[in-house]
Each structure stands twice: as structure tokens, then as C-alpha cells.
């Protein structure tokens, strides 16, 4: 093979996109040709440089909120307005479910479970999270100081939510606001991790043992539910589930250590 032929194919060779025979020919040439090897080295370096240095532009939170809201409301429109279509579709679904129930009870069980979670508190939590990002109403009290945020709730709620300062762990407090969930006013605390916002919804839930669920996904958001110190917490963010989990753990310990009412 001539250098020109090799140089022309270096790019797919680097990407491992040539057929094995071609690839072997090029490798043989490279073993014997320092200048083509140099050229390959430069190309490799370029690839590494792009991966390491080219900026990556993740979607802003507000866009994420708009997009998942659009999908969600499209789906709910389908259920509310599609009267004739909806009824027949529901009829068909019912018939299908019956058939499937006969065929496989397990399958029905899982699908029902999914359906239940679809309409459950998780969706309410995610909707609240999305609304807080969309409506420009993230915080009623904007402060990174727990001693400002916590007293702000006095007189606005019939409980005093624990507010932890997790800035040293990389989750600075942004502020708090009143929200409304499960038919009651709740405390919403807002934390941040890099460009990701985390909403923590908290309200008293006495008589429930301390527990923590692994992150679940709803509409592209991760949700963690935990209970400790007689409070129920719902944590929601587009942050990756690993980091959100460690945030959940921090919250559980930080909440006990410090600011119990």
C-alpha cells in the first residue's frame, strides 16, 4: 500500500470502521512507515483533544422542563379530549387487558403497577419541580444561609422543616419556597449541584420508619423518597442518579445532626 492510500483511510482506521482485511493492510504499512504513524498520532491527538476540550452544551433546565411538560400535557390531552377515540381506545385496552390477564397474570400485574405509578405522587412531585423551573418561581426566600431560610417558614407552615447546609459537600442551598402537594402546604428547599437544581419537598410524616428508596425515573427526572426524623422527603432533579443518591444520604445525616425543630 502506498502512503497516499493509507493517509486517505487513516480516519476510518482510527475509528475501527474498516473491514478487517483493509485494516490489517494499513496496520502492516504503519508498522514500517514512521511518517504515516506520525499522521495517525496527530489524528488520535485531535480526537482526544475534542473529547477533552470541546465544550459540551447540556440542555438548560428550563428547556428540559418545557419539553417534558409538553410530552406530559400532550398525553393528558389525549386522555381528556379524545372522547370517541378515547372511549374506543379504552375499550380496546380493557379487552386487551382481559385477554392478557388470562394469558399472563404477571404481565398484567407489572403493567398495572406502572399505571399506578404513572398517576401517583411521583408525578405530582415532578410537576411541581417543573413548574418551579418554568414559572420563574423557584424560591420565595433566596438565600444560601440555612439560618435565613429556616425561620422564613415560621408562621407559614404548621411545622418547621429541617434545613441543612450542604455547601461544603458541593450542594449549596439556593433558597426555599412554599409549595402545595398531596393536598397540603409543604416546604420546598432548593439546592444546586453544578447547573442542576434539586427540589426537596418536605412535610411531617410521623409514625413511619426511616427509609430511603433508590432513585426512580419519571419524565427524565430522578426522584428519591426518604423518611427520617418524622419527616417525609421527596427529592427530585435532573442530576444523575448517583449524585442524587449521595445528596439524599447527606440530607438524611445533615438533617439529623443539625436543625431539628
Amino acid at each position: 500500500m502506498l502512503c497516499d492510500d493509507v493517509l486517505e483511510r487513516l480516519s476510518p482506521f482510527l475509528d475501527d470502521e474498516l473491514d478487517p482485511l483493509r485494516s490489517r493492510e494499513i496496520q502492516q504499512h504503519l508498522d514500517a512507515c514512521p511518517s504515516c504513524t506520525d499522521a495517525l498520532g496527530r489524528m488520535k491527538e485531535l480526537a482526544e483533544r475534542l473529547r477533552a476540550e470541546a465544550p459540551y452544551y447540556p440542555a438548560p433546565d428550563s428547556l428540559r422542563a418545557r419539553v417534558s411538560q409538553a410530552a406530559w400535557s400532550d398525553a393528558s390531552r389525549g386522555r381528556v379530549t379524545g372522547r370517541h377515540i378515547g372511549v374506543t381506545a379504552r375499550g380496546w385496552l380493557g379487552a386487551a387487558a382481559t385477554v392478557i390477564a388470562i394469558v399472563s397474570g404477571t404481565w398484567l400485574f407489572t403493567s398495572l403497577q406502572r399505571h399506578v405509578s404513572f398517576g401517583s405522587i411521583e408525578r405530582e412531585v415532578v410537576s411541581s419541580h417543573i413548574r418551579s423551573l418554568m414559572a420563574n418561581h423557584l424560591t420565595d426566600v433566596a438565600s444560601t444561609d440555612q439560618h435565613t431560610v429556616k425561620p422564613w417558614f415560621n408562621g407559614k407552615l404548621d411545622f418547621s422543616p429541617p434545613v441543612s447546609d450542604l455547601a461544603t459537600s458541593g450542594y449549596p442551598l439556593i433558597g426555599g419556597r412554599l409549595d402545595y402537594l398531596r393536598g397540603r402546604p409543604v416546604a420546598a428547599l432548593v439546592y444546586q449541584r453544578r447547573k442542576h437544581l434539586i427540589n426537596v419537598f418536605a412535610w411531617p410524616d410521623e409514625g413511619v420508619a426511616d427509609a430511603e428508596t433508590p432513585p426512580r425515573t419519571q419524565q427524565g427526572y430522578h426522584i428519591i423518597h426518604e423518611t427520617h426524623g418524622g419527616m417525609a422527603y421527596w427529592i427530585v432533579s435532573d442530576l444523575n442518579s448517583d449524585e442524587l443518591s449521595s445528596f439524599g444520604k447527606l440530607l438524611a445525616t445533615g438533617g439529623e445532626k443539625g436543625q431539628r425543630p
Partner: protein
Amino acid sequence: MTHERRPETAGPQRHLSPRELDRFNECVLPYLDAAHNLARYLLRDAHDAEDAVQDAFLRAIRHFDGFRGVDGRAWLLSIVRNTCFTRLRGRPSSGENVEFDEEIHIVEETAPGPEVDLARRAATEAVREGLDRLAVEFREVLVLRELEGLSYKEIAQVSGVPIGTVMSRLARGRKQLLLALGPPRAQGNR
């Protein structure tokens, strides 16, 4: 692109069923970042990119019944890509291949925080500018390959061109970018 605009068969407008919504959230929504990154590179404008991605998602929702198979990423990215190219064509002075455009090269808050050292910031800026100055077809394949790690076959699917075209665009794009960026800096990151 035009074949997406097929007549709606079921009534005035179809909507996502709960199951479809689940599937959409599972197979498509996770690639929102990839979608935005691609749009941002293709359009070279933060505001346009957001608009385009939102448009693309609305189309994706509307035509979700046309989504078969499992590769939500390629499916979504091809919609995003087509939306962006339509916008580019509609831009005055068909702004592609502009050799230098001050307005496009506004420095953005790509890496905030004082702890980010200047050298790294300059390196990022150089790479971004190098990419931005490539013709959009080359920029597209490079972003899909190097930043998203797509295979040639997937890139071909996204861009709607044969694999051979992907191959030659990548080769030419790399050659041009190497020329533009010049020799690698001595204290590269390794």
C-alpha cells in the same frame, strides 16, 4: 424530511397514550442533552439552539407513532438535525461557511468559576472556534462522532447520507480541523 408530514389518520390530532408517554420518557427524553449539544454546534447560537430543540421535540411527540425499534437517540437526533438544517437554510445570507463572524464567536459561560485555569479555558476556546469555523456538514459528523461516540452507521442514520459519505466527511473534517488548530500545544493534557 417531508415524509414526516404525512396526513393524520386517526382524527384531528393524535396524542401520546400513557404507554407511549412512558416509552417516550424512557427512549427519547434521556437524549435531550445530546440533542441540545448537537443543535448548539449546528446553529452556533444559544437561543436558536433552544428553539430548535423545542421544535424538534414537539415534532418527535407528534410523530412518536413513527418511532419503531429501540434507538431513540439516532431517531431523535435526526429530527433535531433536520430541524436545524431547515433553520440554517432559512437564515439570511445563508450564513454557512462564513469565514469569520464576530457575532457568532461571543464567548459564552461554558466553564464558569474562577477555579478553572486560564490555559484550559483558552484551549477550550480554541477547539470550539476551530469547530465553529468548519462547514456545517463537517462539524456535524465530528460532533456526532467525537462528542457523542456514534458509529458511522448511526451517523449515517442521523444525517440521512450513505456511510461512505460519513467516512469522507469525517476524514476531511479532521484534516481541516488539524490544519486550523495547528500543532498540538506542548503541555497538552495527558
